[in-house]
C-alpha cells in the first residue's frame, strides 16, 4: 500500500468488515460510511463477522477477491485479524483499523480511547456516589476494547477508598441476558450502589432490572446509543453517565485517512477519538 493509485473517486470500491451489525453503534457507523461513500460517488461493500474471527478473515479475503480498493477493518480480535491484514497488504489494498486495533502492517488506526471511556464513566459515577458504596461490573464479550474499558473503570474506582467492586458478571452485550444478570446481582447485593456496564446494549438491559427492582442504583456505561441517551434524560434516571463514542466521526475519519493513503498522500498513522462524557446535563445536546 505504498504506491499511489489514481482511480477517480467514483470508481473506488470501499470494503468494510464489521465485527457485528446488530448493534446500533455499528449500524450507525455503517450508515455514516454509506453516506460518505455516496458523497464521493464510490461504491461500498460490507460484511458482518458476528464476533467470529475466522469468518471475518474469510469475509476480508472474499472482499479482496471481489477487487476492493480500500479496506476498513473493524476487527473482532486485534491479534487474530493479522492474516487478513497481511492478505490486504499483499494485494496492495490500504487497511485502516476502525474502533479496535489490528495487528500487522496496517496503514492507520482510528478508534476511541476505550481505557479512557471506562475511566471517565466510572470516575463520574464514583463522584456521584460520594466515593463510597458497593459497585458491580456488567461485563461483555471478552475482546480487547471491552477488557480495556473494564480496566479503565477499575482504575477509576480504585481511586475512591470507599468504593468496593463486589461483583463482575457477563451480560454478553445482549439486552435480555444483561437484564437477567443484573436482576441476580441486585438480589445477591441488595445494597449495591452502582453498576458499570461495558456498553449501552448491556446498560439498557440493566436499566430494566434496576427500575423494576426499585433499588437506588447508579448506572454508568459506554457508547452513546440514542435509546440510552434518551433514557438518561428521564427524571431520576439510574443511568447517570455514558462515556460516548462517535461512530460516525470515527468511520468518516478512517475513510479520509484510507483515501489519502490510497492516493499516496501524507496521512497520520493513528487518530484517537476522544470520548465525551454524557450526563443528564448535556444529554439533550448529544446525538450520533
Amino acid at each position, binding site marked *: 500500500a505504498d504506491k499511489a493509485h489514481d482511480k477517480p473517486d467514483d470508481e473506488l470500491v470501499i470494503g468494510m468488515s464489521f465485527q457485528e451489525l446488530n448493534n446500533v453503534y455499528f449500524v450507525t457507523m455503517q450508515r455514516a460510511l454509506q453516506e460518505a461513500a455516496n458523497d464521493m460517488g464510490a461504491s461500498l461493500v460490507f460484511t458482518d463477522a458476528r464476533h467470529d474471527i475466522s469468518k471475518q478473515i474469510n469475509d476480508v479475503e472474499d472482499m479482496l477477491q471481489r477487487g476492493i480498493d480500500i479496506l476498513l477493518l473493524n476487527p473482532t480480535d486485534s491479534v487474530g485479524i493479522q492474516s487478513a491484514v497481511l492478505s490486504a497488504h499483499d494485494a496492495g489494498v490500504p487497511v485502516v483499523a476502525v474502533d479496535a486495533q489490528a495487528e500487522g502492517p496496517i496503514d492507520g488506526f482510528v478508534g476511541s480511547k476505550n481505557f479512557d471511556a471506562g475511566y471517565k464513566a466510572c470516575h463520574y459515577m464514583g463522584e456521584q456516589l460520594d466515593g463510597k458504596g458497593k459497585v458491580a461490573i456488567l461485563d461483555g464479550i471478552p475482546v480487547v476494547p471491552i477488557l480495556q474499558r473494564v480496566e479503565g473503570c477499575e482504575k477509576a474506582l480504585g481511586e475512591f477508598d470507599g468504593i468496593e467492586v463486589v461483583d463482575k458478571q457477563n451480560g454478553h452485550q445482549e439486552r435480555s441476558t444483561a437484564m437477567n*444478570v443484573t436482576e441476580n446481582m441486585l438480589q445477591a447485593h*441488595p445494597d449495591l450502589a452502582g453498576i458499570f456496564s461495558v456498553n449501552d446494549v448491556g446498560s439498557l438491559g440493566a436499566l430494566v432490572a434496576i427500575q423494576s427492582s426499585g433499588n437506588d442504583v447508579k448506572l454508568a456505561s459506554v457508547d452513546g446509543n440514542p435509546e440510552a441517551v434518551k433514557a438518561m434524560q428521564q427524571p431520576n434516571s439510574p443511568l447517570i453517565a455514558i462515556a460516548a463514542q462517535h461512530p460516525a466521526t470515527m468511520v468518516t475519519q478512517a475513510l479520509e485517512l484510507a483515501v489519502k493513503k490510497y492516493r499516496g498522500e501524507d496521512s497520520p498513522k493513528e487518530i484517537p477519538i476522544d470520548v465525551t462524557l454524557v450526563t443528564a446535563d448535556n444529554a439533550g445536546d448529544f446525538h450520533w
Partner: protein
Amino acid sequence: MNTSASTSDVNSKPRRQRRSRWSRLVHSPVFFPLLGFIAVFIVMALVNDNFLLPNNLSNVARQGAIIGIIAVGMSFAIFTGGIDLSVGPVMALSGTIMAGLMAGGWPPTVAVIVGLLLGMAFGAFNGACVAFARMPPIIVTLATMGIARGLGLIYTGGYPISGLPAGFAFFGRGEVLGIQAPIVIMLLVYLVAYVVLHHTAFGRYVYAIGGNEEATRLTGIRVPRFKLMVYTISGLTAAIAGLVITSRLMSGQPNAGTGFELDAIAAVVLGGAAIAGGRGAILGTLVGAMLLAILNNGLNLMGVSPYLQDVVKGGIILLAIYIGRGRNA
C-alpha cells in the same frame, strides 16, 4: 413390583395388575428430573443466603419463563422424534414484528395477534418441510433459523425497535393475582400443553409418531398433518416467548434468542425426554427449564466468575443427567 401376581392362574384369562402409586411415581419420567432439581435447589439454598427470598424465587421463575415457554414447543418436536433449532430467531422475529407494528401505531392486540400468527406460520413452514417434503428436521430448522434471523435483521435494519405503548408492558412486567405476568403466561402454556399431550388424541399421536412413525402411519393416523401441527405449536410458543421478552424489554430485539435452542433442548432432555422421541413428559420440561434457571441465578448470586460459570453449569447438567440416566439412553 409384584411378582406373585404374574404366576397366578395360568389358564384363565391373564390378570391385569396395576402398579402401585409409589412405583408409578418412580417410573414417571418426571421423577429423576425432579430429584435433580431438588438436589440443586437445596445446594443453592444452603450456599446463598438470598436464594430463598420470595423475591428471588419469583426472579428465578420469571427468568426461566422465556426458555420455559420455548421449551414447550421444543418438547412437542422432540417427543415426535424431531427437533426445532429455529426457536430463538423465530422468537426474535415475532417480537420485533410486534414491536414494529406497535411503534408504527397499530393497537397492541392486533400487533400481538399478528406476531403470534407469524410465529405459527414460520413453524408451519418448518412443519411442511418436515412432514410433506420429508426433510430431516434438524437441517430444515437450521436453515430456517438463519432465514428467521436474517428477516428480523432486515426488518429492523439492525436497530432495536423502541417506543412501545405503555400498556404493552403488562405481559413482561405486570402481575396477575400477585404473580408476575411472565410466570402466569408460562404456567398457562404448560397447562394447555399438559392437557393436550395427556388428554387428547393429538397428544397420543405426538408420542406415537416419536415411538414408531411407520407403525403410526400404517395404523391410519395422518402423521404428516400432526407433524405440521407440532412444528406450528413450536412456532407459536416461540412467538409467545417473543411477546414476553419484547414486553419485558419494551423493545423489539432482532438478535435476541441466540443460543436459546440449545437451552431449550437442554431443558427438555433434563426433563427426562428421550431425544429419539416417543418418551418424555411436559412437566419434566418445566422442571428442566427451572433447573437451568436456578443454576444461572444461583451461580450469579454466588458471584462465581463468569468464565467459571460455564464450567460449573456444564458439570451440574452432566451430573443431573447422570443421575437420571438409563431412562434416556
